[in-house]
C-alpha cells in the first residue's frame, strides 16, 4: 500500500466529515461531536499506520483497532467505508432496523470491527488482550485503542493502565481524543482528569502529547509510539469536539444530538 500524501488525507477527512453529518442527520440520532474530533486520528491509523487488509479482515498479521469510545461509530463506519470494509451506499442505513451499522459497533455484524463497544472504559482492557495474544503467538503486529477524555473517568481504564505497564506490554498504543468535553458538560467541570500527561507518566506509560488535528504530528506520534520497547504508549491528542463545522465546534449540544436537516445542509456547505 502506498502511503497517501497529506493532501490526499485531507480529502479523505473532508469526505468522512461529510459522511458523519449525513449519517447522523439521516438517522436523526447519534454522536456527531465526538466523531468529528477523532477524524484525523482514525484516518491516520487506517491509511498510514496500520497493517490491514479489507479483503481479509481476519488476517492474523493485521494490526488491531479497538474503538473504545463506541459512540463515535459514525466515524468508524465512514472511515471503514473509505478503506473498503463497508459499502458506501450502506452508510445511510445507520441506526435503522436490521442495518449492520448499529448505534454502537457490533463485531458480529461487520467483519473488521474488532470489539463491540458502547459501554465506556472497557476498550483498553480488550486491547491488552489482543497485545498479549500477539505476544504469546510471537507476532509483531500492533494494537491501537482509541479512547476519549471523559471515558478515562472509568476506574477500569486505570486498572488496565497499571496492568499493561506492569507487564511491560509494548506494541500497544492508546490514543486519547482529548476534546475536553463529556456528556453533561466540560470534562473539567464534571470530573477533571488533569494533569493527564503526568498521570499516564506516573503509571509508567510512554506519553506523546500532540495536536490531534495536525496530520504530521498525529502520524509522527503514532510512528514514535510504535517503536517504544517494553512499555505501553499513549498519545494525548488535543482535539476540538465538533471539529470542522463552525457551529458545532466546542458546542456540546452536538455530543449526542444529530444536526437537523437545515443544520446538516449548512454543515455540508462548509465542508464543500
Amino acid at each position, binding site marked *: 500500500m502506498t502511503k497517501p500524501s497529506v493532501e490526499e488525507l485531507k480529502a479523505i477527512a473532508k469526505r468522512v466529515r461529510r459522511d458523519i453529518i449525513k449519517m447522523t442527520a439521516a*438517522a436523526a*440520532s*447519534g454522536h456527531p461531536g465526538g466523531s468529528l474530533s477523532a477524524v484525523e486520528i482514525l484516518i491516520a491509523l487506517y491509511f498510514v499506520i496500520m497493517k490491514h487488509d479489507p479483503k481479509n479482515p481476519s488476517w492474523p498479521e493485521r494490526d488491531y483497532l479497538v474503538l473504545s469510545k*463506541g459512540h463515535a461509530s459514525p466515524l468508524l463506519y465512514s472511515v471503514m467505508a473509505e478503506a473498503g470494509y463497508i459499502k458506501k451506499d450502506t452508510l445511510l442505513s445507520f*441506526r*435503522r*432496523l*436490521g*442495518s449492520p451499522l*448499529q*448505534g*454502537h459497533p*457490533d463485531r458480529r455484524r461487520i467483519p473488521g470491527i474488532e470489539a*463491540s*463497544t*458502547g*459501554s*465506556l*472504559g472497557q476498550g483498553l482492557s480488550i486491547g491488552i488482550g489482543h497485545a498479549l495474544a500477539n505476544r504469546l503467538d510471537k507476532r509483531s503486529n500492533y494494537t491501537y485503542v482509541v479512547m476519549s477524555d*471523559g*471515558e478515562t*473517568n*472509568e*476506574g477500569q481504564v486505570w486498572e488496565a493502565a497499571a496492568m499493561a505497564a506492569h507487564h511491560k506490554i509494548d506494541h500497544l498504543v492508546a490514543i486519547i481524543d482529548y476534546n475536553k468535553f*463529556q*456528556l*453533561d*458538560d466540560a470534562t473539567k467541570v*464534571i*470530573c477533571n482528569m488533569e494533569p493527564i500527561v503526568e498521570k499516564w507518566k506516573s503509571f509508567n506509560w510512554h506519553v506523546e502529547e500532540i495536536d490531534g488535528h495536525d496530520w504530521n504530528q498525529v502520524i509522527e506520534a503514532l510512528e514514535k509510539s510504535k517503536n517504544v520497547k517494553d512499555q505501553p504508549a499513549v498519545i494525548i491528542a488535543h482535539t476540538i469536539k465538533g471539529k470542522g463545522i463552525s457551529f458545532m465546534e466546542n458546542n456540546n449540544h452536538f455530543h449526542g444530538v444529530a444536526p437537523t436537516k437545515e443544520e446538516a445542509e449548512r454543515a455540508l456547505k462548509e465542508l464543500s
Partner: protein
Amino acid sequence: MEKRLGKATRDAYGKTLIELGKENPNIVVLDADLSKSTKTCLFQEVFPDRFFNVGIQEANLVGVASGLAASGKIPFVSSFASFLVLKSYDQLRMGAAFPELNVKVVASHGGISVGEDGASQMAIEDIALMTSLPGCVVTIPCDEFSAAQMTRKFAEYKGLAYMRTCRPKAPIIYDEKVKIQIGKGIKLRDGKDITLVANGLLVFEALQAAEDLAKEKIEASVIDMHTVKPLDRDLLISEARKTGHVVVAEEHQIWGGLGSAVATLLAQECPARMAFVAIQDTYAESGPPDELLDKYGLRAVDIVKAAKKIL
C-alpha cells in the same frame, strides 16, 4: 384502545425529585454523566449542593451512595440501567444490599425501547440481577403518574429499592389520583378466562390485548404488576384460582424477569397454565422503538397469541 402518550417515566422521576428535595433535606441525588437523560438534571438545577455528578464511573457512583446512606442521607442514584446495574453490581451487593442500606437506585433507559442507540445501551437483564439481591425492592412503573408516585414511595421506604424508568413517552394509564403501593399490583380490568400480568410499557399492550380478546368472547383480567419484588402474592393467587391461565408480559429477557417471579410463585401456590411474552434470550439492536417492540414480539398481538396458545 386509544393510545394517549404522556411523559416518559424518567421525566416524572426527575420532576418528583424536586418536590422530594423540598420536603426532605436529607435527600441527595447522584448521577454518572447522564443527568440530562435520566432527568436528575432537574434536581441539580434546584439543589446544586445536594447533587453529585461523579463522571463516567458507575461503580464509584454506587459506592459513594452507600457511604452517604450509611451517614444518614437518602441517596437517589441514577444512570442508564445497562451501566448502573451491570457495571456496579458488586457495589450494589456489598455496598447496599448486604449492609441493608437505604439506597434508591433509579435507572433509566430500561428495555429495548431505548431504540436507535442499540444493544449496548439497552438493559434487558436488570430485573433478573436486581431481584437476585436479597431484600431489594424491584419496580417498573408504566406511566408518568405511577412513576411519580413510586418515586415518592421510594423516599418513604427504608432500604434498597430499584426502579426502572424508560426512555420513550409512555401511554397514559392512570391520572394524578392513582395510589401506588410497593408490592401491591393494580387490577385494571377484570375477566374470568385468563389473567394478563404486565409492567412498564407492556401494561398498555396488555390492556389492548384484553380488548382484542374480548372481541372473541375471551374475558381477560389485566394486572399492572409494577412491583416485581416483593410480588403481590394474594392478587396473583386469587387470579390464578379464578382463571387458571396466566400470561406474563414484560420488556425484559425471558430468564429471570417478572415471568420467572410469577411462575415461581404460582408453581408453589396454585399451578396455572402459563405463557410468557418477553425477549427470547437474545440481544436486540438499533431501530425505532416501535419497530423493535414489533420485531422482538412485545406487542398486544403477541400477548393475544400467547393467550390463545394456552386457552
